[in-house]
């Protein structure tokens, strides 16, 4: 059901000599790009089903010629209608006036159905009412999917994604890119990743519009079988869309990493140390529920009960993406079991979350000579004099003053290795913070990571409730929360923090 209106009526292509092409586009001297330019038009004209790749007509010749660089103006004037791909007198910007490059253009016009309907149109003004999944109404399915697509785009921070991709493309097209292979690798990896995300969503969007076309066609021609098939496909898409919504919540660069969770008791002695250990326990149980590996890295017990501070390592996909929602100060209100007068106490515990970057090339390089490694809490003559299972190590990174300790491994060697990995993560985070000051795009994610303000209150007396102060999400069963049932809080925070930002779409 190829749409006739999209078929090209006439076009002419002239293969200019390489030299003139270069001057035309200020082309970097890169053979691959030229080849791409020469062959791309054919690829497009030959394919039968690549409707998405045919952009909307773009009236460059008639009205926008003044906006093009003078070289191109001259060339266009000198070679009227012989240049590139034309469609009804319209120049098709198939391969880049903006950035000339080997990749498809980022800023593609919005895809639409044969009768010009776009995803935005479908969602706007509740054109089609969204009903339950069970109601087999194709318009409802389509509307729900369209809504998901909008949400996914918002969560992926679409506008910023497009800008970032543009920047990366420019970077990728610099002829001297590979002079610094590490940087080049980083750029092309990021580009690949973002491009993949964008293509996935665009493909999904196109799929929806195709199904709508198909359904309309089936109805016109009373093709019941086709209608049923498209209906099924739409329902399946509707379900996938919900999964994709969730995935898109964790699209941050470090979200897929494992992480360290650090809990520190606030002022208030034993009561708040006990609270800190309750919080730590909550995270251990949460991580277990999620199927993550949990290792205690460092633990400093309170004198009577609880912990002064503790660090655990949470191993698994998206551990950081979820746990970052927990950063901040957690407040407890209860009758303290440590108060003989049975008074009501308020105590605080602070939570910090550090991603463990998996990508070795993005990690800060640590010079051995910048490190000062000490036996932690050492005393006495040591050596054969002492029998101890205490082999804790503290590592100080002298230039930054950042320290890390580990005391829960059973040998000094392993304590040192673990402390090094904690130190590495802290330095990585510091480096990210530094970069963020340069790159405003990251600022938001960083304020989330640093020690934040009070985020949640747990009340055990006089009533029972846990309430998140950022999202107002609340539950009336503190026990289940303290046993690690945090998903509601985490999800509501993640979606609220991303979805509220209208600029993301």
């Amino acid at each position: 059901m190829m749409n006739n209106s999209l078929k090209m009526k006439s076009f002419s292509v002239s293969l200019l000599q390489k030299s003139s092409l270069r001057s035309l586009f200020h082309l970097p001297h890169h053979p691959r790009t030229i080849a791409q330019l020469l062959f791309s038009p054919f690829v497009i004209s030959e394919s039968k089903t690549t409707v998405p790749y045919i952009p909307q007509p773009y009236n460059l010749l008639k009205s926008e010629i003044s906006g093009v660089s003078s070289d191109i103006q001259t060339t266009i004037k000198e070679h009227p209608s012989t240049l590139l791909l034309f469609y009804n007198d319209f120049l098709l910007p198939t391969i880049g006036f903006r950035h000339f490059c080997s990749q498809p253009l980022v800023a593609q016009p919005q895809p639409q159905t044969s009768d010009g309907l776009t995803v935005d149109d479908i969602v706007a003004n509740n054109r089609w009412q969204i009903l339950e999944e069970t109601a087999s109404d194709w318009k409802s399915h389509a509307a729900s999917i369209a809504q998901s697509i909008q949400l996914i785009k918002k969560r992926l921070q679409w506008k910023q994604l497009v800008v970032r991709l543009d920047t990366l493309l420019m970077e990728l097209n610099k002829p001297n890119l590979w002079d610094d292979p590490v940087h080049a690798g980083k750029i092309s990896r990021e580009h690949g990743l973002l491009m993949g995300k964008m293509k996935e969503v665009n493909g999904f969007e196109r799929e929806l519009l195709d199904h709508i076309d198909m359904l309309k066609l089936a109805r016109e021609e009373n093709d019941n079988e086709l209608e049923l098939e498209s209906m099924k496909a739409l329902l399946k898409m509707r379900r996938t869309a919900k999964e994709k919504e969730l995935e898109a919540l964790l699209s941050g660069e470090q979200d897929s990493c494992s992480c360290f969770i650090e809990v520190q008791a606030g002022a208030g002695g034993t009561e708040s140390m006990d609270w800190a250990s309750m919080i730590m326990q909550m995270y251990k149980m949460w991580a277990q529920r999620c199927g993550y590996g949990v290792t205690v890295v460092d633990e400093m017990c309170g004198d009577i009960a609880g912990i002064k501070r503790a660090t655990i390592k949470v191993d698994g996909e998206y551990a950081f993406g979820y746990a970052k929602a927990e950063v901040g100060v957690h407040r407890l209100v209860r009758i303290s079991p440590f108060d003989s007068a049975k008074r009501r106490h308020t105590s605080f515990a602070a939570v910090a979350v550090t991603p463990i970057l998996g990508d070795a090339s993005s990690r800060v390089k640590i010079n051995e000579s910048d490190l000062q490694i000490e036996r932690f809490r050492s005393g006495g003559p040591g050596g054969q004099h002492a029998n101890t299972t205490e082999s804790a190590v503290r590592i100080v990174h002298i230039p930054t003053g950042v320290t890390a300790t580990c005391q829960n491994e059973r040998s000094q060697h392993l304590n040192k290795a673990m402390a090094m990995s904690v130190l590495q993560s802290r330095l990585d985070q510091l480096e990210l913070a530094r970069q963020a000051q340069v790159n405003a795009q990251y600022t938001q994610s960083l304020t989330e990571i640093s020690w934040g303000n009070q985020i949640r209150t747990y009340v055990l007396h006089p009533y029972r409730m846990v309430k998140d102060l950022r999202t107002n999400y609340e539950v009336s069963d503190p026990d289940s929360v303290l046993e690690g049932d945090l998903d509601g809080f985490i999800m509501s925070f993640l979606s609220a923090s991303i979805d509220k930002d209208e600029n993301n779409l």
Partner: protein
Amino acid sequence: MILNFFPCLIRYSIFTPLPLFFKHQNLLPLSCSINFIKPISSSSSISAKTIQVPLFLKPPIYSTTILELKKFQNWAKSLSLSIGLKFLNLDNGPESNLLCRELNWLLEDVVEGEEDNPTGFLTLGCSENERLVRMRVEMEELYDLWKQRIEERRPFQYIVGCEHWRDLVLSVQEGVLIPRPETELIVDMVEELILKDKEMKQQGVWVDLGTGSGALAIGIGRLLGNEGRVIATDLSPIAASVAAFNVQRYNLQDVVEIRMGSWFEPLDEFKGKIVGLVSNPPYIPSGDIAGLQAEVVRHEPKLALDGGADGLDDLLNICKGAASFLKPGGFFIFETNGAKQSKYLVNFLNIQMEGSFQYVNSVSDFAGIHRFVTGFRK
């Protein structure tokens, strides 16, 4: 299971030497007696010795409920907490925090659980109190072991029968010095050296004098890989058997050879051929022994600790031997009692043994104590 570690020629008599602790030793499947036949070297022979199997290698043939384990945990924890800073103030012994951590490790070693978090059900507020878990010792024994830890100050490593050292888990038992964390650095320094100089790896034999549990020899043997050769000596027959057991556990019998004898005595044929020499000999002055931490003085072998009047008897002996046994360019590193001994030895090697050594240095451990003396044969 354990017997698989031994080649058919080497057979040990394996039984538990501490009937007090293992009242039901006749029930243990490993309590079989076999003769030890193969002499480890021609110069000496290691007679039948008793190897105590570390807890974590014992088969999990007992079982108990999670509730029972929790009861034990609570009891042992409160016993540990009652110690407070008492031992620390008394003789620099363990304080309760450390004892609590040891308790967790004990549980990890005796409970058969999931690989990455064997005692998870104890720490993560599990509510399945009636569930059965498999154990490597009986509950009664477990209570007994923890009493020994607290009341008799028996070292934790002897309780569980092993010491985690670097990335190794070494079997240890009464009669064998428990390797110290400081000593790990010797392996680090050797690693650094052989990374820089490949010849140190391939050209010649490495020697660990007074190997004890075999820690240094195994650590270096693993660095050298199949092309290397390490000879480890020890005067104590128990130490020699335990070291041999550990070497087998790490499948290094083709790399590390254990010889029984005093210092260089069993090494005659290697005069002038040794490329690397490491040792952690006894270096505590005799007068200090009585005042040591209870875990050490009551339980660890004096043979491995007492270095004579000023603690230097054996170190000097080794320094002299190093001059004739090391090949030119050969490397040595010894552990010492601290700044005083290190300074003395550096002087001794540079002045009294003038012309034998170069680049003689003392190196600090992580606590900042001048712990090691290193250098090269000229």
